[in-house]
């Protein structure tokens, strides 16, 4: 289960809507499993089908998180033409780069009226488990 402060949930959706039709991406740092804030990252690909991060921005993010004793709790991004579920690329990077403890939060902006927001944990063998997103005050 991923507990998500309502303001951060809304900020993720706003980011996804703003960058549509390109994919948006970012990080929700946390302490002891609780999301502390939202960090919008630049999509270096500026693409409707993929995202990546520029290495200087990654270094700055991690130094900032270290200073605050935070960890990379959630990685979020949007799918703008398909459902909010991990693609093969997402699974490959979850296994290779983030590891099984990082939540993959995916937003779908393919429908104008509704925004799908779903969260997944992806095991070291690539098995995908969807988890509940519980909105909390904050």
């Amino acid at each position: 289960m991923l507990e998500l402060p309502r303001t951060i949930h809304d900020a993720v959706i706003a980011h996804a809507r703003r960058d549509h039709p390109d994919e948006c991406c970012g990080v929700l740092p946390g302490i002891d499993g609780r999301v502390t804030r939202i960090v919008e990252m630049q999509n270096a690909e500026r693409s409707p089908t993929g995202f990546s991060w520029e290495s200087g921005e990654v270094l700055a993010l991690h130094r900032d998180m270290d200073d605050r004793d935070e960890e990379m709790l959630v990685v979020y991004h949007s799918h703008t033409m398909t459902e909010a579920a991990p693609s093969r690329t997402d699974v490959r990077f979850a296994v290779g780069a983030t590891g099984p403890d990082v939540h993959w939060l995916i937003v779908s902006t393919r429908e104008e009226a509704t925004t799908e927001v779903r969260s997944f944990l992806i095991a070291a063998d690539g098995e995908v488990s969807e988890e509940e997103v519980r909105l909390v005050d904050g």
Partner: protein
Amino acid sequence: MTVQVKIPTILRSYTGGEKSVEASGETLDAVFGDLESRHAGLRARLIAEGGGLHKFVNIYVDDEDVRFLGGLEAPVKDGQTVTILPAVAGGAGSQT
């Protein structure tokens, strides 16, 4: 040449949970070789089968991405810090 190497969470299983380890060498390649002698398996997570840096990691010497310093041949000096961070990417892809 002794450097500090910062290890990301996903690779700490190779360092017994340590966030930072010491290593020696005059190039990044030598540092990774030295690391491998004490933390077996780590090198394969940093260097791809083809011989280049693995796409799942960003590696820096102090503030510089090593891709701009010569990759594995990047020189390292005594007291510098090698930082390894996860290189995250993804997206729907054009197939779906």
